[in-house]
């Protein structure tokens, strides 16, 4: 089982003819993702990794119905691409680019709300239904099927933690990257709800970081509505206030978004917060043994 996507999810790649777009199209196909078409304005008729390329999302959908789209275009063009995909009727949009202007991101999210669509990212590694389909740029070999749902704000740190789980023989149901920006489509709470409903997910791992309030909101949801055990790791304990730590959203501003506030909120909600990334896997094992 999985949430958001599965082996039947049909995917369009916007920006497929670029270096990143074509490389990751090959990687996704190798993982088993059903990629039905690519979009690159002015490149109709080309074929990338066996995938036909169209001039527009609308044109692609005329002959190749799809459910989701992944965008690899440069940040200044991402808003146009995302709105096009939304208007054309796609219900899951994965925004890989970083540095999308904040006001563009807010416009994309507002339109997605109207269209009842899910936006993952921006500045995300995407999402993967382990063993069946990935819509993103994560290294496929770490994502093997199992009972753990993972949701993370950062990429490599998430691979590190999932890699540890995999090495310990623990697989995942679905892994979702929320993205490192200040305005992102999916938040922890959205994904936690899905994991709580998903019969195949037994335990949940939440990988958060300083900045914003998404972890505090997650804590409120976990404490009021979740039965499944949640293990968390949070990055940024040593980060000084007022400095952006790589991610646009990872910043302590005016005393908000601190490490301490997040740990306290999650701990009060009954979440076990690992003090090192390497401590997550043993805690997950413990939780799985009890269920």
């Amino acid at each position: 089982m999985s949430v958001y996507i599965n082996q039947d999810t049909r995917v369009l790649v916007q920006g497929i003819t670029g270096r990143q777009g074509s490389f990751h199209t090959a990687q996704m196909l190798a993982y088993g993702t059903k990629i039905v078409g690519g979009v690159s304005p002015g490149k109709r008729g080309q074929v990338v990794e066996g995938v036909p390329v169209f001039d527009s999302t609308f044109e692609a959908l005329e002959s190749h119905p799809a459910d989701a789209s992944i965008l690899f275009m440069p940040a200044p063009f991402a808003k146009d691409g995302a709105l096009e995909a939304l208007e054309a009727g796609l219900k899951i949009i994965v925004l890989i680019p970083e540095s999308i202007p904040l006001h563009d991101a807010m416009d994309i999210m507002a339109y997605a709300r109207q269209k009842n669509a899910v936006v993952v990212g921006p500045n995300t590694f995407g999402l993967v239904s382990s063993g069946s389909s990935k819509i993103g740029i994560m290294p496929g070999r770490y994502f093997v099927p199992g009972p753990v749902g993972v949701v993370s704000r950062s990429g490599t740190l998430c691979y590190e933690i999932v890699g540890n789980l995999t090495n310990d023989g623990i697989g995942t149901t679905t892994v979702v990257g929320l993205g490192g920006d200040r305005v992102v489509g999916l938040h922890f709470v959205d994904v936690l709800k899905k994991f709580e409903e998903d019969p195949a997910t037994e335990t949940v791992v939440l990988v958060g970081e300083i900045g914003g309030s998404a972890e505090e909101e997650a804590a409120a949801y976990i404490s009021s509505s979740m039965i499944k055990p949640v293990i968390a790791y949070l990055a940024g304990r040593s980060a000084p206030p007022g400095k952006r730590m790589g991610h646009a959203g990872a910043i302590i501003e005016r005393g908000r978004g601190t490490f301490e506030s997040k740990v306290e909120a999650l701990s009060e909600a009954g979440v076990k917060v690992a003090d090192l990334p390497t401590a997550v896997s043993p805690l997950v094992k413990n939780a799985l043994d009890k269920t």
Partner: protein
Amino acid sequence: MKLYEHMGKELFARCGIPVPRGKLVETVDQAGEAAAELGEVVIKSQVLTGKRGKAGGIAFVSNPGEAKKEAARIFDLKFDGLTTEKLLVEEKIQIEQELYLALTIDGAARRPLVLASLDGGMDVEEVAEERMIRWPVDNTIGLQDYMVREICRRMGVTGSLQKEFVKFMPKLYRMFREMDAELAEINPLALTPDGLIAADAKVTIDDDALYRHPQLPRITEKTALELKAEELDLAYVELGGDIAVMANGAGITMATLDMVQHYGGDPANFLDFGGGADIDKTTQALELLLATAPKVLLINIFGGITRCDVVAEAFVRVKENKGIELPVSFRLVGTNESEGRAVLEKEGIKTFNSMDEAVRHAVGLTA
């Protein structure tokens, strides 16, 4: 990018938001001339720190002689290590009441957020939660008059002041959207006999949208090293310890720093050289770190789109060209891991499998 007060006010004025009459000056004499022209004035240091008032960076004077004296005093002050290069000399306005108004971005609602309060002129964190009205604006329709009236109702504002707000707030919203602002804050927003006037301006523009605003000046608070890193497209923050840290990805770099601290070490910096960096970029990142003369170098690579062999080759290249004298703790796993290790082993450099081991080794090397 934070703007100086006078730049924020210039943007306000362009959108029809009333600001006090004023002059930007660079010398003591110019301050005197401005005071001679404007009469009773307030002299304000143009620095990018919120606490300049408390630090003595604002002075009210009634004649040119005093203006010169105060200007000289402010030019000599330091604000968190920053000195004043310019002063804003403004006419003194007749303030009946100090209010607070800001637009910012609500990450939780994914929308612009209006913050409004009758308690202005003080540190915004000191305003009681229930006295600060928060209204997330649906950006598909923008800030409408009814929203402003509702914000006013919640603040307890009626009558002519409410009418003032209905004229004022949409102008600030328009500026906030058009200029790609992350923050547009007016504190205090002054109620005067002539209506509402922005007595201060704190405006931050989204760095990622600066390409759309070529007319704006470029202002930075970064250190020389941080600027160099920015040029190279590396995410770099100076921290002051003795273990230089380099990793690929913001989250894992933060986690590496946390782990260094956990084991009793003191990180010198945050350096995320990103996913999928090529050999040149990796080389530049390494060279930048070595130039800071740390005691120990800690490299933590979990290769997804980053290739371990590329990192290893960059390391060897720097070692051959510039020499790497300091002790290094190298963790290298992921894509093309065995190729990368082979390259390093030829140079007699051993690598760690786990992040935990590598960090403990690095901390041990500083002892």
